[in-house]
């Protein structure tokens, strides 16, 4: 069925994936395709970024009509920062992995958030390095076991917690096996005017999918505990808001985003209010302590100004300035030279 732009869903696809059959990352690519297609976003207004690793290959597999940049290991955030300054009028989707974000790119990840570069930052998190054949990553759980490298003795880095600490205003965790939730979160993240981090547990079927691995399909399916049922209502979509009554067992939270869209959360864990920063960090710590696989929108707040806003840049893309805007006049140079004489 064509969307509002007259495009079919298949028009949003790109090259055929070369990842292992069954890879969690492919299902995330599919949800990106679905989200952008559903929202009828023009692909020419979307930028795709990635670093290096299995996850970082995926931007070649979705949105053929979008410019994409598969950059260097861990440094996609800086490339995305520069590109979104050059043209602040576009949507940006970055795909990274747990090695790319949690190790080599940890600093760039945090500074991207600190600057509030407007982009959807997806971490396809499988706790393992795939392309180099199965080393632990920094998000691997303590005690996790791998075939060749044995037992992981170090505590994991929780990327959601790190994102919140760094000042991220949209932080979510999901599971690639939970397609609907992934897609809804991506849609909501695309409406966020700031860095939106979604840490998606995405099993590596080749190196880290044994049922006892906390990053496996079996584990995820058996243990995923959504904090809420999440719905996203894009701007222009008229929801049947008035008719919804607040159930005594389930709190209903609605968040209006700056573009007029809504996120609606029907709380399952009614103790969790994603608008409370301390609560968000507490729930993540609890999850770590009690080995819970909690998913959903962990934290949300009204975004700070984006980097382009902080820098007070013109509304027009910097990439589209006229020659007259790029070069001051001959008189301007003469006046300047007089000051140095």
């Amino acid at each position, binding site marked *: 069925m064509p969307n509002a732009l007259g495009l079919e869903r298949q028009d949003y696809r790109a*090259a055929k994936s070369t990842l292992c059959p069954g890879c969690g990352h492919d299902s995330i690519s599919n949800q990106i395709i679905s989200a952008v297609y559903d929202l009828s976003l023009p*692909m*020419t207004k979307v*930028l*795709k*970024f990635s670093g290096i690793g299995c996850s970082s290959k995926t*931007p*070649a597999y979705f949105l*053929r*009509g*979008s*410019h*994409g*940049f*598969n*950059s*260097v290991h861990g*440094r996609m*955030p*800086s*490339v*995305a*920062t*520069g*590109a*979104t*300054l*050059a*043209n602040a*009028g*576009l949507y940006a989707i970055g795909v990274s992995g747990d090695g790319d974000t949690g190790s080599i790119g940890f*600093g*760039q990840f945090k*500074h991207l958030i600190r*600057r509030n570069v407007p982009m959807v930052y997806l971490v396809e998190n499988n706790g393992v390095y795939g392309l180099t054949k199965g080393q632990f990553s920094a998000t691997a759980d303590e005690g996790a076991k791998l075939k060749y490298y044995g037992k992981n003795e170090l505590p994991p880095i929780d990327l959601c917690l790190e994102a919140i600490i760094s000042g991220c205003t949209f932080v979510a965790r999901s599971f690639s096996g939970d397609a609907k939730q992934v897609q809804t979160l991506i849609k909501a993240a695309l409406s966020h005017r700031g860095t939106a981090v979604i840490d998606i547990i995405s099993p590596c079927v080749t190196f880290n999918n044994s049922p006892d691995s906390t990053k496996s399909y079996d584990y995820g399916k058996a243990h995923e505990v959504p904090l809420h049922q999440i719905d996203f209502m894009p701007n222009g979509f008229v929801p049947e808001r008035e008719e919804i009554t607040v159930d005594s067992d389930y709190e209903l939270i609605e968040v209006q985003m700056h573009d007029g869209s809504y996120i609606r959360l029907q709380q399952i864990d009614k103790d969790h209010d994603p608008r409370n920063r301390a609560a968000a960090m507490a729930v993540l710590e609890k999850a770590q302590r009690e080995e819970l696989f909690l998913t959903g929108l962990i934290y949300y707040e009204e975004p700070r100004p984006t*980097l*382009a806003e902080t*820098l*007070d*840049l*013109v*509304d027009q*893309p*910097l*990439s*589209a*300035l006229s*020659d007259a*805007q*790029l*070069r*001051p006049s*001959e008189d*301007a*140079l*003469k006046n*300047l*030279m007089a000051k*140095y*004489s």
Partner: protein
Amino acid sequence: MSAVNYQPDTRTQSAYQGEPVVNDFALMVATKNGSGSQTSNEVLIRSLFRMGIPVSGKNLFPSNIKGLPTWYTIRASKDSYIARRATTEVAVAMNQDTAAEDIDNLPEGGVCIIPEEWKWGQSRQDIVYYEIPVKATLGLSDIPSDFRDRIANMVYVGACAYLFNMPLDIVRKALLDTFNGKEKPANMNFEVIQNAYDWSKENLVKQDPFRFEPLDLTEGKILITGNEAGALGAIFGGLTVASWYPITPSTSVIDAVLDHKHLRKDPETGKDTVAVVQAEDELAAIGMIIGAGWAGARAMTATSGPGISLMAEFTGLAYFAEIPCVIWDITRMGPSTGLPTRTSQGDLLFIHFLGHGDTRQVALLPGNVAECFEFGWLAFDMADHFQTPVFVMSDLDLGMNIWMSEPFAYPGTPINRGKLLADKEKFEAFLAEHGEWYRFRDYDNDAVPYRTIPGIDHLRAAYFTRGTGHNDMATYSERGEDWVQNLTRISNKIDSSRAILPQPVIDYDPQNEIGIISFGSNDPAVQEGRDRLAAAGIGTNSLRVRALPLAASVKDFIFKHKRVYVVENNHDGQLAQLIRLETAEDTTHMISLPLGDTLPMTAKWVFESVTQWENK
């Protein structure tokens, strides 16, 4: 501004009997770092400049905030020589820790100006001492204690003004220039200068031959640092995204961008068209400008050797993925942390070959502040034209010291965005003509492909940028022939730049058998050295390289001479190495003369190095 018509109202009372030395001597001020002497030294330079006397200054400073010794040399030259002088006739010894050495270094007949309260004594009989009561002079003015130490330096400005004949009204104007026209600090400082001048006039008897007299050789000229000049060039070249990580000696490039980006403010909204981001490190700085360049910005960073090291991987990607960006390398001594505040040309080979695999980066090599400005804008044009990173390699001497120059010429060519299909109309016109568009296909047989940028409203305008192997359709490829085809085209593209990048500046007379090749900030020393060589009967020609890859004329020049000297300021003779690498013919008549002693080159060194060989 000169003061040709100036008539001194008082004549210095002089006990000196010999010939005066007028407008042709150098002065050295020794102070402690962080003591504020930069301001007083700038006042001296600007005063001479306003007197119409060609002047140059070299700041020899430590990597330190406060306390370590720092020296500033000021050279006045009626012959317009602006290279550093190895020895100075005058020493203003304001640092007790180095005074003994500073006095030792004076030539016979030299002058030492030293605080009276030190009771230093006169260890040398062959120089002139002037002891100045610094504290007492300072005590005459009501100066807030916070400023006391800094303003103390104005005492030697007043003493020098009297001793060497610098009119006080001109010194006052120079002071105002230094304080950007702010009367209040200028007045506070001037009072001290006046008091020191008055004390000197009453108490000192001139016993040395050195004096300044007004000339008319700076009329219409400007004084500026290379880093400011480069930043201005960037502003006039359409810079839109700058990202950097602070590092000596490059920091003032971006400082100057911040100072002048208002020139590019949108007149209606007052908003900026230049984004400046202080990155978390050089890895991020280069990443940001590559992302920005890819998306259509004119993007630059400024750094020095250690930063360049961190940028190696990203610039290799940009070379291979054909992304324009501009990288200023204000070089300092390396390897490693090296000497952060000392000048060097040691990054030449490093930047040219930066990136793993087969890379040859384009580099522009400015030799003076006017070229810093010119290459500041031209670098963006070249980066866009060749779709590749362009390095601009300046150095600490050119970048941080103040230089005289003709006012900068307005860019002589319009902004060149290269083969950029910037919008839907251009893209559709291309499709109409070619029936297709592939990012890395060589449509014009000149090895330069056409590029699109994000935001073009056409579904076929997108392509996937990657550092992995790709074919001319920008799709992933591990096929050997795709790899070879791609790299061959890129290599041809870089070779084609030899004829388009700034060509060498050549001074050639067929009668001369000796040639001197150099680049960058060595030029004043080389030209002055050539004059000295000519006076000694050794006629020379010169060629100054201004870009890498090397222009064809470099090779021609080498084979037109019986002997060629390659003069440069690094340890290993990197330009000579590069020339040899590119020259299959016998170059045994080419002699590498590398300096690399942490300081700006002197004419004396050029003269002595060449004559030593010629006399063999």
